[in-house]
């Protein structure tokens, strides 16, 4: 029996659901309050992680080793990790040196 890994199984499930649940008040507050450094910062972290887990599930379902080979699957997983890191960096840059995520949505929507 392999030793239990905290990242597998129900811990991952719990984390995924807690993250999704946290997005409800986060989006509500951002929509009502407008831009604020804390909510923008949280959005720039929570949304990429949520998207990453969704994409990871899609890779597991559709780009599995039997279909694309062990190397292919690993390549996709690491490509996703790279993309998520870039996204996190982009969000951080945008929140710090530009107007922030909520403000961008607002401005773009009213343009």
């Amino acid at each position: 029996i392999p030793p239990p890994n905290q990242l597998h199984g129900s811990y991952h499930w719990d984390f995924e659901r807690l993250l999704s649940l946290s997005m409800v008040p986060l989006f509500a507050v951002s929509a009502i309050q407008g831009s604020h450094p804390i909510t923008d910062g949280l959005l720039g972290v929570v949304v990429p992680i949520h998207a990453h887990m969704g994409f990871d599930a899609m890779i597991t379902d559709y780009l599995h080793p039997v279909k694309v080979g062990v190397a292919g699957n690993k390549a996709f997983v690491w490509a996703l990790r790279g993309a998520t890191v870039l996204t996190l960096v982009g969000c951080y840059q945008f929140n710090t040196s530009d107007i922030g995520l909520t403000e961008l949505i607002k401005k773009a929507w009213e343009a």
Partner: protein
Amino acid sequence: MAPVGTRILSTSQVNQKEVTVAPLIEQRKNRPLAPHLTIYQPQLTWYMSAFHRFTGGAVAVGFYAGAIAYAVGPLVGLGFDTATITSTLATVPVAAKVAGKFIVAFPFTFHSFNGVRHLLWDTARGLTLKGVYATGYTVLGLSTVSAVALSLI
């Protein structure tokens, strides 16, 4: 008569995997796949489940593309910042803007409301046929109405 000590047959080292497994893989690549999505009776359950994944992927791809373009833009000379985005969007005709906003808003609202529906199921609520269909139609209604409302702002 053959000279003593000569081999009649010759042998060579064989990679077992190459000889036994590789041809099978090549055969599998050429076989057709049995119909699945095309023959299953259209139902709200799996249509909404598929749409939930599809909308999630769509919104996430947009988000990733935007964030990565912003992060990498300066390095490749791609002018991607708030000023360029808003000024480009201002030049789009009104009808296209409303339609575009609906196309962007609906996946987001559907995925959000359906996400709440999923979280409801995770608390073991509404896991009946009636519950699934009732919440399903509610999500469809709510997401359409909110998307229309958002696209008219």
